[in-house]
């Protein structure tokens, strides 16, 4: 199994790559890398990636985003069709450029979703909690609960929709959603209540509470730190004291995280799952770091301008830099590692 930190680094690299480029050639390359990692991890985990198949998800998001952009953005020279002007918001030209740009945004969004799904599937929730600092443990638990709550809520929504459908209910207008949303909301609250009971009966948050004096000291420190952060930000934004504002923000952040770290140290919390770091994890992190470095930093032999692709005002052929291409190919390394290990 790849170390959670290695997966996290890979995920950061994929997210940076997908945020940095709209060049269709690089996007296709990232898509291929994700497909390879997904294929190998599917064989290992024996679970489907998402509720939808990855290809279905890509098509859905690409089509939706392309249509949305084409209907709302009027730029571009290649007019495909012209909607009547009397149509509110939608009337006007539909251009190929807007369609292409929308599709590229949809593609990037779908790939981000798939990358997160791969990591979520490969790492149990406990490992995700494990990499969050101890001071944020309650927050990590809330996140874990939210993650496990989503599939339950989706299943519940499906049951309610079916039950209402066989009662003759049809979704035609906005208010027709009420028979679905009301039971879903009430059921969700009931489940949340039962989960809270379950957590309490398993001793969650049963640690001895702080003394009144400690509690006041904690409140005061956090208040001072937050005020410092806000003041520093305002100094930079409103009065243009960049250096002073930055120093104030930096020192307040250190104070805040220091306090939280101290609080975390006092919480009697240990971890059951432990991971060992090995050479394969180092390779994953190195490859991901190379991708990040190539995409974010200026390098003499790299044409970073090829990352940006803007189809307006006329769709043009995207250019390609071999160095960036190789950096993106490095994203397949988790698949190589898993393949070798298996």
């Amino acid at each position, binding site marked *: 199994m790849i170390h959670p930190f290695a997966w996290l680094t890979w995920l950061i690299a994929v997210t940076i790559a997908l945020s940095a480029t709209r060049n269709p050639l690089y996007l296709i390359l990232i898509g291929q890398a994700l497909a390879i990692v997904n294929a190998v991890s599917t064989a290992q985990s024996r679970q489907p990636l998402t509720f939808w198949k990855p290809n279905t998800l890509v098509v859905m998001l690409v089509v939706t985003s392309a249509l949305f952009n084409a209907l709302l953005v009027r730029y571009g020279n290649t007019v495909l069709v012209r909607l009547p002007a009397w149509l509110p918001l939608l009337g006007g030209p539909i251009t190929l450029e807007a369609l292409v740009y929308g599709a590229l945004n949809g593609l990037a969004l779908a790939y981000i979703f798939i990358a997160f799904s791969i990591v979520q599937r490969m790492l149990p929730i*406990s490992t995700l909690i494990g990499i969050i600092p101890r001071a944020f443990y309650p927050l990590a638990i809330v996140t874990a609960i939210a993650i496990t709550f989503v599939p339950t809520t989706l299943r519940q929504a499906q049951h309610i929709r079916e039950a209402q459908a066989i009662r003759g209910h049809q979704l035609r207008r906005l208010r027709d959603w009420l028979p679905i949303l009301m039971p879903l909301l009430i059921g969700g609250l009931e489940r949340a209540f039962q989960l809270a009971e*379950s957590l*309490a*009966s*398993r001793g969650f948050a049963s640690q001895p509470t702080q003394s009144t004096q400690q509690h006041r000291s904690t409140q005061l420190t956090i208040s001072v730190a937050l005020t410092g952060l806000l003041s520093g930000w305002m100094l930079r934004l409103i009065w243009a004291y960049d250096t002073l504002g930055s120093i104030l923000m930096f020192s307040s952040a250190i104070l805040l995280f220091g306090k939280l770290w101290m609080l975390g140290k006092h919480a*009697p919390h*240990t*971890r*059951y799952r432990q991971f060992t770091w090995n050479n394969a994890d180092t390779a994953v992190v190195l490859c991901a770091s190379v991708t990040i470095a190539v995409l974010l930093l200026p390098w003499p032999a790299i044409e970073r301008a090829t990352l940006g692709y803007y189809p307006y005002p006329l769709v043009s052929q995207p250019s390609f830099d071999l160095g960036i291409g190789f950096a993106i190919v490095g994203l397949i390394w988790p698949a190589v590692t898993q393949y070798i290990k298996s």
Partner: protein
Amino acid sequence: MITIEQLTFHYPETAQPTLHNLTLHIAAGSFTLIMGRSGEGKSTLARCIGGLVPHFSGGTISGHIRVAERDPIALGPSGMSRIVGYVFQEPEAQAVMDRVEDEIAFALEYTGLSRTEMRLRIEEVLDLLDLAALRDRPLDQLSGGERQRVAIASALALRPQILVLDEPTSQLDPQSAEDVLQALIRLNNDLGLTIILVEHRIERVLPFVDHIIYLDGDNTLSGAPAHLLPHLPHVPPLIAVARTLGWSPLPVTIKQALRFARATNVQPNQTIAPQISSPTILELQHVHAAYLKQAVLEDINLTIRAGEFVALLGRNGAGKSSLLKLFTGLLRPVQGRVLIDGRDIASRDTAALCRDIGYLPQDPNALLFAESVMGELDQSLRNQQLTDRSYIPQLLMELGLSQYAQTYPRDLSVGERQRVALAAVLVSQPRVILLDEPTRGLDYGAKQRLAELLRTWHRRGMTVLLVTHDVEFVAGLVDRVILLGHGAIVADGPTATVLGTSPLFAPQIARLFPTSGWLTAEQALQHIAP
């Protein structure tokens, strides 16, 4: 271990106390069953022991309760967590993590135990509950019984002295329920763990308990099964027969009762199953069905005639609910044909089908959203563009809901809510009613009322198809039983034939008098003179 003195508890904004002047003692190492009608405070009592009431519920409490020398009212559930392990009805609603081992480790991690100690405890509970082979499995890939055993393991990892379980088997098929009960028996016998179990379907629990608490308003009974069972109003068929025939000492297991049964002159039931010649109303022809490409039903051929009363039994995941959904259009076959009145329903949508077919889902709450019971019925009529409201008063009266017409449905009890859902489905007067696990969470009285209603509607010509795990409910009710296993029909025939010969689904009376053809206490007592 547990001492309760003059305990009285009111939920907020209720006039009547749920627990009134209750005085009890539960011994260390006992296996205690809390039983009684719905609304008598079984779960409330269990929650008081774990400190959940009044900590979570609010309300007013008076009297004393001591659990292992501690006061749960003062300590609350977190403070009691090392003493009392609590397992809820729905295993799905109490899991935090996504894998078996992590879920068990969850409670241990924030108690600050060393990793060595955690490993020891986790191995211990995995072995105790026979979960070692499942340790790396995601929770959503487990069966209901397995998930409930994980919930028990998670509660036990903190090594409590008492384990409280609130209807842990209510959603499980007989085999899964048996697995959970066997795990509890092991914990009670081998570790001396005090077990307190709240349960409606007591027939499968009675053989193992050594203490019963029967809550009935001010007349709470508490004692050994041998002392209490002769006096309880609702008992399993085996006890009912034994009591009437004067078998002494009163047997609580089939094994104990067989000694008396063998001395009984059994005259096999000569009644012949009625031949139904009415036209076919529901039909499946070579049907294959799947969810997300996972096959759930394979090559099903089934014919149900108008006016038949049929039960569909099978283990969790056998495909029972999927089969019901085929007739409602909620699930479309991958292959084969679904016919209603001889017409293929492939081109008909669910909204059109529901004029002929009424469907009561497992969870009646999925249906209820209106401000009043009457509002729910009106909504059903509106959905189907029906204007005739003349049937509503009769329907409400038959369902015992006339006085609740203007009540908010979710303020009603589980049984009443289920009847509201049934009313919402039946108000359009469908010819067929499909019921998915209709006895879930119902006490004996509510089940009897439901059985009476179904009999009445069946006598009027309605076709009834119900899915259930409750074999005792089915035994005296339906004419025909279909057994499903791994997505295929494994048995189909008259109730006495199918249930009488099934090792897993045979009711108590069929096990007691295997060659008789009797399924219920009433049938047995008709043929045996006391």
